[in-house]
């Protein structure tokens, strides 16, 4: 794969599932095409059931598309199983921590699967737990951690294997807004600091705007309905609009106060 090649490329990818009641196939992804470049954070936005997670599972290599071409790092994510060892880190909607492993052991899981030397693996896992503010909780089992702490452990687990791509499937949707906001900021900082490519699935517009360099909006079944790049000019435009709105509200308030006087 050359530097110019996209990290993730979908070309007319279609995925349908057979309905159990025999009413034909259910199309989850319909001729979906997009590209994601190295270092981009792309937020994928869409209503529930629009095929976001199916797209996610295709990128992760967990399911195979029926037609079209899905390439990740220039390879087929479903068939080239070995190639992707340690190259994709996933943060799921729920934390998916192994209840029989402590926080430290959960972060160690990926490193152990990748046969990292035990001392190096433990050092890395402890470092990631500390970065995510979980120092002192290394030996706690998941049932003893709060929802936010558990999701931090799962983020540490994904980052610990130093993947090239991070896939996140609505990772903060089950958390309260305050915790979710903190974790979002933390996540973006870590992705940028470590120069990762990230695909972030969400159904919240604010979250997509906050996180993504680019936002892809999906139709149902999954197809690009709208796409926007959130560069400096877009943000400046939005800021100017908010300023104008505030000015308008303030001037209406001033006029009302004057009339009362």
């Amino acid at each position, binding site marked *: 794969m050359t530097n110019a090649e996209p990290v993730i490329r979908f070309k007319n990818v279609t995925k349908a599932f057979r309905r159990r009641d025999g009413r034909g196939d259910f199309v989850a992804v319909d001729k979906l095409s997009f590209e994601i470049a190295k270092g981009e954070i792309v937020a994928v936005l869409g209503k529930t059931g629009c095929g976001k997670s199916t797209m996610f599972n295709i990128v992760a290599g967990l399911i195979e598309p029926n037609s079209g071409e899905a390439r990740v790092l220039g390879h087929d994510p479903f068939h080239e199983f070995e190639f992707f060892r340690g190259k994709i880190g996933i943060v799921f909607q*729920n934390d*998916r921590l*192994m*209840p*029989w492993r*402590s926080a430290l052991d959960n972060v160690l*899981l990926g490193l152990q*699967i990748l046969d990292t030397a035990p001392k190096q693996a433990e050092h890395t896992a402890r470092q990631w737990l500390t970065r995510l503010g979980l120092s002192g909780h290394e030996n706690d*089992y998941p049932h003893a951690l709060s929802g936010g702490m558990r999701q931090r452990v799962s983020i540490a687990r994904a980052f610990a294997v130093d993947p090239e791509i991070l896939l996140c499937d609505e990772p903060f949707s089950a958390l309260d807004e305050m915790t979710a906001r903190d974790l979002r900021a933390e996540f973006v900082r870590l992705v940028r600091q470590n120069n990762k490519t990230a695909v972030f699935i969400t159904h919240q517009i604010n979250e997509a705007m906050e996180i993504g360099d680019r936002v892809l909006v999906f139709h149902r079944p999954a197809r690009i309905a709208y796409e926007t790049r959130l560069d400096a000019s877009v943000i400046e435009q939005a800021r100017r609009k908010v300023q104008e709105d505030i000015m308008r509200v303030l001037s209406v308030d001033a006029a009302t106060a004057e009339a009362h006087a």
Partner: protein
Amino acid sequence: MTNSRSVRILQAVASMIVLAAVWQLFSYTFPHYLFPPVPDVIARTIDILITGSLLADVLLTAARIFGGLFGAFILGSVLALVIGQSKTVENFVAPVLTFFQGIPALSWVVFAIIWFHGIEFRVLFIMVMTTLPAFTFQILDAFRSMSKDLFEMTMSFRPSRWTLFRFLIVPTIVPGILTAWKVNLGNAARVVVVAELVGATGGVGYQLLRQQQLFDMAGAMAWTLQLVLFVLIVQQTINAIENWALRYRAVSERAM
């Protein structure tokens, strides 16, 4: 928790004391060859434990129980993992195991005596055949209850088959394995006595047959108590292993 545990232990001890007291009352009313006094039964029980040749019979029975359970556990685990991965294999094997489950232990004893010569192999065969279906189905259930979420998460790291087995499948089926051992232990203890009673020249079952021939109720009680003590000790050991292996669960989730 400690308080409620202490109360539970006290209640259990109290119920055993009441049972012994009732037996003792019967021994005052009926002839001793029918209801021997409790002190006599206790003396005979201790006698077995401190007499090497008699203790050897208890240990022989214990070894047969462990041997049979271990054989069934290994075979059952392999069968469960194979069935768990193939619906076709399940369609072939599950009905056979269900059929085996319906065969009484005594029938297996008769079959073993007709088919085989060696005593130890007969007992092993009977033990394995009577506990295999339960081991297989219990481990299969544990395997099937494996979380799809955890499976997907583990697969996202692209593990080898061995790593997947070690890191996900084994910890998932451990609670099922421990339950299977607890359930099958009592079953195995009953079956081994029947097997020894009919076709062995040593062990607790053989000794029970001798006590029946001698019309010695105190002896029969003492040998029975050996088996009960053995089952209780092993069950407590399994409970301790379970508490250690499942220590990750919140206290409220663990078996109290």
